[in-house]
């Protein structure tokens, strides 16, 4: 009779590795399936197509914003495009009507990135006009250094974004298992999970989780919770803490600005730089605080006539709206340096009185914008003034 042979170390280890692999392969497979269905692992182009087909769709995945924005830009081919930081995320297409407009904010934080983004834009379409965030802190060395990680932007993110997508699904499993459970029947049925909220339709796990995302016109829809807590953040220090100052404007960044402006000029694009409003408390701090005086050097230099001259010489039409009338009203802001939709609308009302701005955007519906602003004031609307109007 043959006796049972003892398993060798090798066979034991082989079995060990197989048992180890099975649950890992199974669970990663499940997560891949969810990511594929929920839009997290969609290409920016596919997401862009979806939004084009359904303008009420608000999209947010864990992919970098700028990839989606670039895809939407390529699809929309706007006449006027807004690029820059988070300070302009509330600019709406209604404010630029009748121009074909797209808000590609959250795409560049310094001039190197603006140039990089512009080059990519030019590969697919030449806009007539670029409106961009032009702020004092963009000339601060620390700000630029702090945002340097974005210098290596990959506008075609490839395989890494796929892993980020998987991470996004797992993140949701961890932070909000209830949400995942609620979506399970839809996912098991093989349908795309889309959550209706306030007449908008959220798509992308990240969007559903945060109840936020990018609207059809590129502006950003914030979650209700975030909007409710916004006024509490309007403290003086938020600007100082978030945006590092400097003794002076960094010459390297001035050069980068010139390079960006030249690229636009060479391609026949009109450049309009706007410094969006800052909360008055923040401005007062920079203007008067003795401890911050040195760091506020870049702010003073930015506001000087020499800088205005510099921008003009480089073909930039600059509108400094930092000291907007009404910037002492915290209800025009999300925090010390992010104007909300009403704050942005107020900016456009003030800009409508500027002859240079009027001549640049001669077709703008200034009277309607004023009326919209008056209505917003009357109805005490801070956000969602234009809601699903595009």
């Amino acid at each position, binding site marked *: 009779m043959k006796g049972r042979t003892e398993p060798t170390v090798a066979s034991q280890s082989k079995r060990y*590795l197989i048992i180890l692999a099975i649950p890992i392969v199974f669970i990663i497979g499940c997560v891949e399936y969810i990511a594929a269905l929920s839009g997290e692992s969609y290409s920016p182009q596919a997401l862009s197509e979806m939004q084009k087909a359904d303008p009420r769709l608000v999209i947010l995945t864990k992919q970098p914003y700028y990839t989606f924005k670039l895809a939407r830009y390529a699809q929309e081919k706007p006449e006027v495009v807004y690029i820059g930081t988070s300070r302009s995320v509330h600019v709406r297409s209604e404010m630029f009507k009748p121009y074909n407009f797209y808000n590609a904010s959250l795409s560049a934080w310094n001039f190197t990135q603006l140039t990089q983004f512009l080059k990519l834009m030019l590969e697919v379409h030449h806009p007539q006009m670029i409106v961009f965030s032009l702020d004092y802190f963009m000339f601060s060395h620390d700000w630029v250094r702090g945002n340097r990680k974005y210098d290596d932007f990959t506008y075609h993110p490839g395989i890494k974004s796929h892993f980020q997508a998987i*991470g996004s699904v*797992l993140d949701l499993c961890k932070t909000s298992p209830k949400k995942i459970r609620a979506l399970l029947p839809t996912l098991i049925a093989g349908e795309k999970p889309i959550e209706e909220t306030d007449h908008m339709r959220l798509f992308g796990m990240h969007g559903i989780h945060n109840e936020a995302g990018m609207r059809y016109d590129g502006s950003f829809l914030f979650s209700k919770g975030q909007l409710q807590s916004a006024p509490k953040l309007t403290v003086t220090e938020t600007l100082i803490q978030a945006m590092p100052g400097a003794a002076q404007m960094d010459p390297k960044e001035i050069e980068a600005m010139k390079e960006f402006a030249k690229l636009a000029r060479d391609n026949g694009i009109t450049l309009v730089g706007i410094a969006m409003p800052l909360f008055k408390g923040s401005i007062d701090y920079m203007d008067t605080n003795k401890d911050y005086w040195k760091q506020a050097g870049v702010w003073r230099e930015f506001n000087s006539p020499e800088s205005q001259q510099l921008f003009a010489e480089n073909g930039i039409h600059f509108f400094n709206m930092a000291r907007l009338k009404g910037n002492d009203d915290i209800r025009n802001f999300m925090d010390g340096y992010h104007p909300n939709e009403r704050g942005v609308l107020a900016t456009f009302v003030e800009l409508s009185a500027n002859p240079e701005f009027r001549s640049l955007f001669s077709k703008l519906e200034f009277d309607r914008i004023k009326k919209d602003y008056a209505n917003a004031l009357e109805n005490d609307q801070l956000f969602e003034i234009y809601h699903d109007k595009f």
Partner: protein
Amino acid sequence: MLFTQIEFLFFFFPLCLLGYFVLARFFQNPLIRITWLAVASLVFYGYWDKHFLKIILVSIVINYAFSCFIGKRDQSLKVKRSFLTAALLVNLGGLVYYKYANFGLHVIGKIAGHAFDPLSIVLPLGISFFTFTQITYLVDVYRGQSAEKNFPKYVLFVTFFPHLIAGPILHHSEMMPQFGAETSRKLSYDKLAMGLTIFAIGLFKKLLIADSFALLANPIFNQAIVAQVPIFDAWIAALSYSLQIYFDFSAYSDMAIGISILFGIRLPFNFDSPYKSRSIIEFWRRWHISLSRFLRDYLYFELGGNRKGTLARYGNLMITMVLGGLWHGAGITYLLWGTLHGLYLMVNHGWRNLCKKVPALLHMSDKAFWKVGMLLFTQLMVVIAWVFFKAEHFRNARNMLYSMFHIGSKKVEQTFTNDIGLTFLFIFAGYFICMALPNIKDMFKEHNPGLEIYKNDQASTLVQLRWTPTVTWAVITAVFLLLGISMSLIMGDRSPFLYFQF
């Protein structure tokens, strides 16, 4: 690249391993796979910042050249000594420039009453590790203990990626014979099972445990930059940071050993349950063992060690620990951390001498209550020192310590911890793992995954665990690996090891 990063887990590591064994399969010559591993290690390093690559390559070439000059047989001792001095100056000069220049400027500025603008210097990752590794090598070449002629092998010795960024500080005598050895030619199932398990344990420790403690410690330490914090918060932060750095470093050490074993290379154990120590002397034999060895063999002994009397011994101890503190970083807090440990060691040695003279004390130290007391006391001292290590600057550390010991009259009401009871329970669980569970060295004792470079007495372990390739262990490892990979995917690049900055 981080061990916890997607690029490493899904691309670099599998490809590097595959390439290594494919080359080993087709080419008998070990130089081929050594070169592959050296190049891969440079890719691993250069992935952070390609500019760092130039620095490490220059350092390697210069040191290799120096080692050749120093190692020449017909060279006179005087010439050898001159070369060694030059080499040390170049190495330490580079380290001082990259790591300490701005700190020096800051100190000079403070003394002179004039603030100098900091130099625009980016600290190359792991510079302390690769500099010390090479200094060790050069000194040993000078002593006639080594002379490596094979350049790719030397490059691999310095750059071998599992140790490159956060140690251990390798000794050539332990590593050179392993590179290209016949045992490293084949990947066996048992090595794969063991390596993956150790790696999974490390991944879990880092991403699930260490990073969770970081979430408790960081906001409170940040608040203590500007003001004092409530007493419970202060203790939560201090204890959490102690656990964070423990699990962080332990995780790195485990992962490095796990990765290495897959290449058939055994790295030294660099971490041996230091929180089970019952004295500071023991702590330093268990914490960052390869650094302690370096400081002992190449600094403390060179200074004279304990050969010139008690006073000189204490002085040497203090110098060694202060420099050890500064090795971790250029800053007053690191200096204070090192000084504090120097003082601890002096007191510890003094106490030991006293115990030898007073039999009653020696007798007492064998009692269980005394052992437990010493364990807790040692831990308390370590935690206090960690406050300096973690603090951004002196005021930060002072605010934390004042808060912990309720010094000062500032009334602080706002607490940062939602559920103090649950948080302390979590901290207790962390300490239970540190003090009651075995480490990798104990768990894999029969399988010999690493080199024991310091023979410690077996630390007491309440729970005995021995790894064997069983179904239970496979399931546990799968859970660890899954949770670790999941956290890695969630965290992306946001979870660097604490020791990377040193």
